[in-house]
């Protein structure tokens, strides 16, 4: 018990939790992206999927879990980032130098890209989950017409553009985060070639999958 407590209060243990929750959230975005692909099948398929997903009571368990993962990931990274800033104070006299030996852009800007993703998620929930409630009927069952709402939003150039930018940021976050989690969990080095490839492939699939959706809706989603 004591050992467990000292593990979870150590920097290594906290990064372990960040990695676990990060991988959990990665699983969620992948599932979300795959589910959303149903919009290419048609409005009914998309709405039916949304209806089935929200009408099972398990959704509340999943939502609570998801919020817990999200808050743990966010809270711990905020705490660690703050500690990291104190560990390396940047003096104003320090000249902006241009080192040759440096890490990738994605890995250096995880805190920033993470905060941007967080802001996006809040806006995203307001726009869609808590957005206008249209109703439709599929096979005699009344359900929410989420497809119409999505199509409406992505018809707006500024919103589709904003969404695409956010997906690029999500891609950046995942391109480092997914493979880095393996190192924090003690499984493999983040520089292991296969892990790096896996991380990139994951980021490309999720980021790319989300990227084509607003484009499709903008071009062909008009009623």
């Amino acid at each position: 018990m004591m050992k467990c407590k000292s593990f979870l209060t150590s920097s290594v243990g906290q990064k372990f939790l960040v990695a676990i929750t990060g991988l959990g959230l990665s699983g969620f975005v992948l599932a979300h992206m795959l589910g959303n692909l149903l919009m290419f099948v048609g409005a009914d398929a998309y709405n039916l999927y949304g209806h089935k997903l929200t009408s099972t009571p398990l959704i509340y368990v999943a939502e609570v879990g998801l919020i817990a993962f999200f808050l743990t990931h966010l809270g711990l990274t905020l705490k660690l980032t703050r500690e990291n800033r104190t560990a390396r104070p940047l003096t104003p006299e320090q000249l902006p130098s241009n080192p040759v030996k440096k890490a990738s852009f994605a890995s250096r800007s995880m805190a920033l890209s993470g905060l941007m993703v967080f802001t996006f998620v809040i806006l995203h929930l307001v726009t869609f989950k808590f957005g206008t409630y249209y109703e439709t009927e599929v096979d005699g069952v009344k359900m929410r017409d989420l497809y119409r709402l999505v199509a409406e939003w992505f018809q707006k150039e500024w919103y589709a553009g904003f969404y695409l930018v956010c997906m690029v940021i999500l891609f950046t976050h995942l391109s480092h985060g997914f493979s880095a989690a393996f190192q924090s969990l003690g499984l493999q080095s983040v520089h292991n070639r296969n892990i790096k490839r896996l991380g990139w492939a994951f980021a490309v699939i999720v980021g790319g999958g989300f990227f084509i959706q607003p484009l499709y809706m903008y071009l062909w989603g008009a009623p």
Partner: protein
Amino acid sequence: MKLHLKIWRQKGPKETGAFKDYTVDNASEHMSFLEMLDFLNTSLVQKGEEAVQFDHDCREGICGSCSLMINGNPHGPETGTATCQLHMRKFNDGDTIVIEPFRAKAFPILRDLCVDRTAFDRIMAAGGFCSINTGNAPEANSILIGKETAEKAMDSAACIGCGACVAACKNASAMLFVSAKVSQMALLPQGDPERGKRVRGMVAQMDQEMFGSCSNTGACEAACPKEIKLENIARLNREMLRATFVE
């Protein structure tokens, strides 16, 4: 060759430091970086000015005493070498070179370019050793260790504890250093009896010294003069898990 140097000068740990410009006129391209600083210091002393203080000892890349951020790079732009192994032929005539101390909360500046790296010693004292009495050297083949494992342990043991990993890291994390020191013993049977105690002690001391946590960026690996690999950090994390849940 003629060089323009911007060097961090600071009178003491509590004083405010600042960059000062110097020009070295007749540096030779055959000089090592530290010899070039010696050359500058000679001219400063002759003029009655204070010499620039910097850490150095063996000057052959094995002691881990030299440091310096050169143009924003720990140990200069060359990879796999310490500052003492960097030569002026890697620079061009007329170059401006920015020279700073390693910067981290856990490495307070003592004077000019000298930093206090005793935090590393305290981490080592918290478990980075074998305390079992091994007696005389055993017969060479009585403990069999695979070639690959022996090589890995040797690669980890190559760490000279200079602190370049801390200086390179945006979080001033000491994970590469600690992981190399944990790995060199975790890989070998001699280190096995104290494996869990060692890693817990060293990580606790590392956190207490106010080093940051690891963001897995890999800046440390790029800066390491001994090319210590990031896989050591994965091993350290694994060792911590093992020490917590298996032992």
